[in-house]
């Protein structure tokens, strides 16, 4: 056991991990120029345990490398065991200890962000109020019922097992208040509906002459993928009805109509969309303003003035580049605006990226800790260096 702990605490492991991360980061940078997008690079090199790396110029020869997750795990263990727990408790090492604690905090913040942080988008025109926003990645299936008074009642179908279904696979979704069951099948991460021609066959269902065509998953940012799937509604005593669901809501610019069918004498709608989340407060976009540097198309600034209602409290706030709004565990970033191709638009919309991340400020705190630790240690070393040099000169 001691030998294992010694190995985990050793400088050799530190060097192995640092060198491994260095090589991995270098390859992950170079491949972005040639073969891979940023998103793919993250998946292959940094969000993985192992990487099978082709050797350039040697066709078919691959080298196994430790992936980012494995190296980070080893670094955490090495840091914890060797850099904190087994570090000699001497006054001269206090700076190192503080630095290592800061790095551990930084890594913990990375882990918490990876596990818990959620990203979403909220778009609204000037004058619009909003309390809901769409998750950037997660999808949900929702059914609608048109009530007699014209209002729409929404039924969220629990579960997201449909994501990742392959051709021919299905999951059944139910809701106790709904008179039908829904089989969701043939999920496609990035899809577009196309008319089925007579000269070719497709492996997915064709609905009223249309099918979902599989496109290359959008690279770089996952949120631009337009996912699609099929839904078959099964109602007792009736033939199943199949429709295409396509998640193309892009508020505030576009809201897609649901697939509709009849069940239990009523009209129902079903829709695939980005998960809807709720802010713990309400906002209204009062004004959006932006400018280019004169005579250029280089943005000088873009900013939104909003009013916030939190319970009985009302406040106004400006959200701009580098100055997000942090409130009640939610961070609102100014991320986009529109319409961008209409210089005479009288009304603009603004788009906020919304992040929930309990570790949001941990990197800043860890940065202060690391800076203090390094300053203590290196100041000591500088002092020692000056003293040594003076002694050498005297000698």
């Amino acid at each position, binding site marked *: 056991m001691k030998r294992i702990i010694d190995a985990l605490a*050793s*400088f*050799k492991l*530190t*060097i192995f991990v*640092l060198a491994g*991360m*260095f090589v991995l*980061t*270098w390859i*992950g*940078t*170079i491949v*972005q*120029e040639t073969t891979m997008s*940023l998103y793919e*690079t*993250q998946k292959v090199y*940094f969000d993985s345990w192992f990487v099978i790396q082709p050797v350039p110029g040697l066709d078919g020869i691959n080298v196994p490398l430790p992936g980012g997750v494995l190296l980070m795990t080893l670094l955490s263990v090495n840091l914890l065991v060797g850099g904190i727990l087994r570090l000699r408790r001497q006054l001269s090492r206090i700076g190192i200890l503080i630095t290592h604690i800061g790095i551990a905090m*930084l890594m913990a*913040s*990375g882990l918490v*962000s990876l596990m818990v942080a959620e*990203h979403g988008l909220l778009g609204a025109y000037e004058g619009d109020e909003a309390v809901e926003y769409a998750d950037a990645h997660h999808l949900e299936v929702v059914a609608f019922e048109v009530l007699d008074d014209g209002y729409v009642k929404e039924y969220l179908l629990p579960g997201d097992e449909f994501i990742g279904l392959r051709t021919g696979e299905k999951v059944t979704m139910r809701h106790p208040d709904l008179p039908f069951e829904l089989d969701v099948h043939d999920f496609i991460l990035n899809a577009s509906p196309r008319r089925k021609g007579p000269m070719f066959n497709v492996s997915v269902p064709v609905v009223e002459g249309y099918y979902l065509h599989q496109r290359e998953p959008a690279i770089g940012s996952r949120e631009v993928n337009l996912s699609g799937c099929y839904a078959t509604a099964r109602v007792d005593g009736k033939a199943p009805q199949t429709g295409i669901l396509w998640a193309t809501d892009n508020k505030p610019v576009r809201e897609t109509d649901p697939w509709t069918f009849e069940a239990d004498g009523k009209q129902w709608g079903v829709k695939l969309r980005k998960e809807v989340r709720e802010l713990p407060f309400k906002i209204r976009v009062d004004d959006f303003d932006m*400018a*280019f*540097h*004169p*005579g*250029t198309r*280089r*943005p*000088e*600034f*873009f900013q939104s003035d909003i009013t916030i209602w939190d319970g009985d409290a009302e406040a106004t706030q400006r959200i701009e*580049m*580098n100055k*997000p709004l942090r409130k009640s565990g939610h*961070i609102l*970033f100014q*991320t986009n605006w529109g319409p961008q191709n209409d210089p005479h638009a009288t009304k603009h919309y603004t788009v906020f*990226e919304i*992040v929930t991340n309990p570790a*949001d400020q941990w*990197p*800043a705190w*860890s*940065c202060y800790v*690391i*800076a203090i630790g*390094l*300053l203590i240690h*290196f100041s000591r*070393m*500088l002092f020692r*260096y000056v003293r*040594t*040099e003076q002694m*050498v*000169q005297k000698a």
Partner: protein
Amino acid sequence: MTTLLRIVLAATLVAVCGIAQDSGVRREAWPKAVLDELAVLPIQENGRVKPLDTVLQFAMYRIHHKRAMHLPDEPAFGVNAGKKLQPIDWGLDTMFFPGWADTFPAFTLEDTVVLETLGLNELAEQKRKRDRFSMMELAPGRAALRDKIEEYRGIEKKNRTRVQNQVLGLGSAYLEYLDFRDAFDFARARYEIPDDPKLRELFGDKKVLRTSDVLRNIEALIAVVGDPNPSEAVSGFIEQVDRGVRGAGNHLHWIPPKDPNTTEWLSVGELFQLAFEQQATAEQITAVERAEAFADSLTDPTAITAAAAEFRGYMQKMAEARGEYGKVEIEYAYYRFDSFYKALLAFLGGFFVLCVSWLLPKSKWLPRGVVALTLAGNLLVGAGIVWRCIVRDRPPVLEIYDTIPFIAFFVVTVALVIEWINRRRVALAVAAPAGWIMMMLLMKFELVERRDNMDPPLAVLDTNFWLATHVTTVTLGYGAGILAGLIGAVFLLGKLVGFKKGDRPFYNGLTRMVYGTICFGVLLSTVGTILGGIWANDSWGRFWGWDPKENGALMVVLWYLMILHARLGGMIKNFGVNIMAIGSAVVVAFSWWHVNELGKGLHSYGRTEGVLTALYWFYGTSGTIAVLGMVAWVRERLAGKAEKAAPADEQLEVKEEPAPG
């Protein structure tokens, strides 16, 4: 091409240009006062108001690929023959003596194959592979150039050949040149009033109008032009005016707008377009008049200086009224003083004195001279950095250009401090050449980048707090890697050539310097990189995105940490630390420059011609030094083993051998 032919061609082009009267050939040199006045004419370009001198300087980089234009000593060049034209001289010649300036060899082609592509084979044969050409010489190929530009623009950037890129570059330079050449056509233009009752009613007995007259009477003219069936005479008149102001197009924005809330300045072409919707202000019309008066004064040496002063003075007043003139003269003074170039000379002088001091090791004054010159060079670099901060109201590092003087200042300062502490004359020996090389790199980069490096930043960079913290610390972290690499090179090359052989304290001292510098680097790079993550978290909502520039910064931190931990763990000793220090310079170069060349990511500055080649040279040189260092290490180890294996009396003899030097 003969002189006569040049003149004939110039005259032909003037005739083709139409009513804008060419001022012919300049008979006397531009008076210094005129150059001084017009150099600070405020111009709005790329989002800021700057001196005309700055606009012309970068235009010359793009068109001529040089800081100044040398004209052959030929009669056709008149007062310019055999002279080196500064951007302001060349610019004023181009704008006010266009026909003559068209004969200047303003365009630089890196490869005359471009000419063959344009069907100018005969011209290509007469010239060297890399040569300069005048507008006159290139004019016959303009139709082919237009076609080629259209064709090559359709090709994806990464698939274009070198020649195709050069053709596109020539196309841009050609258009930019035309923009300057025609920018003041309106000031020379005279519009003959035809014999038309409506026009006579409007202008009375006047025979000729100037652009300012047309602007002043634009409303009445619109009524005449508004006639659905204008007479032939009126149509001809309108055509004259159109030709007169067309050249001003939308280039050279020197007229402030009417509305104080509008930010975009106007060219004369734009002023005309707007004047059809809303009458130009009296100030704007007076500005045009001042330009005309200056154009009129070109043939009158007694009036030219006053006309230039009036023109510039009036434009200064207009800009001041909007609060946009404040930095124009400071910027002009910055470029005029050229502190980075003076720093280069000081560092070069320091390096020269350093070399002499090696030849005369007993001299006490020579090392002091090196210190004085290096210090002077560094103060000049510091002055340049501060000057730029004042002009932009920004912290020192905003563009990749800014990183070079900033790193130079840091490297030289730290080297001088180390020298002050240990007085080994090693850090001093590194300081002057490092400063000199970095200033050379700065000059070269400005020339190849060919764009104004003080233009305002994107919205995301509009934060002085993060620019002052993250950007400066990361950049200083780079500087530490460069300095460590330089001292490491001194160690390895010293060992290789047997300099101070057997002087262990000397080499231990060098390793301590490298190690200390790396410690500095760890502090700055780690804190700087994390600060960058915090900035990204505030801008984009994520701390880390594996963007190439972020990766580069991380690689620098990882490399520094490897050196420290390998040394602490006893895996490397003196040689290892110094060889890895060379590696730190390589990793810094990768992060500093190479990742920008990848053209990917949120931090991409775009590719710059020639940077990759320079980088590969740097990697090769550093690699060679590292390999030579390893050879020295192997040699020393073998010698050490032999020493141990030798009998005791032999060992004694070896120990008694005096160390060279």
